[in-house]
C-alpha cells in the first residue's frame, strides 16, 4: 500500500491533496430508527481479518505522513448510516456483502427484531458505520 501511496504522490501536482476516506471497524451500533428518534439494539461484532486491515492501513498512512512526502492537515471521524426496511433485509445484506467483515450475534439480533416489531410504523433498521476522513498535502 505504501507503494500505491508513492504512486499517487507522483501523479499529484505540487501542493496537491490526498484524501483518505475509509470505514473503521468499531463494533458499529445496530439501531431501529423512525421519523423523530432511534434506539440502539446492540452492536455488530467485528471480524479479525478486516481489523488487521485497518491496522495495516493506519501504519501505511502514518508512514506517508512521516517520511512519505505528505503532511497530515486534518482528520475526523463521522457516522454514516445504512438503512433497511426490515431486520431480515439487514441480515441478508450483511451475509451477502460483509460476511468477512462483521456479523450480528444474538442477543443483538433478537433485540433488533423485537424493537423493530414494536416500534412506530415508519421504523427502519440501520447500521451506524464509523468513517475516518483524513486530508494530506504534499510536503515540499
Amino acid at each position, binding site marked *: 500500500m505504501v507503494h500505491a501511496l508513492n*504512486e499517487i504522490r507522483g*501523479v499529484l501536482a505540487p501542493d*496537491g491533496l490526498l*484524501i483518505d*476516506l475509509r470505514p473503521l471497524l468499531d463494533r458499529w451500533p445496530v439501531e431501529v430508527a423512525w421519523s423523530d428518534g432511534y434506539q440502539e439494539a446492540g452492536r455488530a461484532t467485528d471480524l479479525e481479518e478486516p481489523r488487521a486491515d485497518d491496522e495495516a492501513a493506519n501504519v501505511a498512512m502514518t508512514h506517508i505522513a512521516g517520511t512519505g512526502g505528505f503532511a497530515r492537515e486534518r482528520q475526523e471521524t463521522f457516522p454514516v448510516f445504512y438503512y433497511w426496511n426490515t431486520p431480515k433485509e439487514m441480515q441478508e445484506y450483511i451475509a451477502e456483502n460483509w460476511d468477512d467483515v462483521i456479523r450480528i450475534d444474538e442477543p443483538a439480533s433478537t433485540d433488533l427484531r423485537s424493537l423493530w416489531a414494536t416500534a412506530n410504523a415508519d421504523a427502519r433498521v440501520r447500521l451506524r458505520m464509523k468513517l475516518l476522513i483524513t486530508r494530506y498535502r504534499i510536503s515540499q
Partner: protein
Amino acid sequence: MTVQIDPEGTESKYLHRYAEFERGTGRVLEVGCGDARLTWQYANAARQVTGIDLETDDLRVALIDRPANLAQRVSFARADAVHLPFKSGSFDLAVFAWSF
C-alpha cells in the same frame, strides 16, 4: 433487498469540506472508485474526474450510471494504484476511498 446508504448525505458533506473544490482542486483522481457511488457525490464540483478500479463489473456499472451531463468530465479506467498510467502532476486531488 433494498439498502439505502447515507440518505443524510453526511459522507458528501465531509468530502466537500475536505476537498477544497472552491480553491481549485479541479482535477481529481479517485482510487478504488468501484461503481462510482462516491464519485457522483462530488463530480459536479470538480473540473475533471478520473476513477480507477480493478473490478470491471463495477466500472461497467459506473459507466452505465454516468449522467449525460458529466460524460465529458468524468472518465473511468481499469488500473492498479501501484502502476498509475498518468503523467506527473496530472491531478490536484486524489481520493483514496476504501470500502468493505
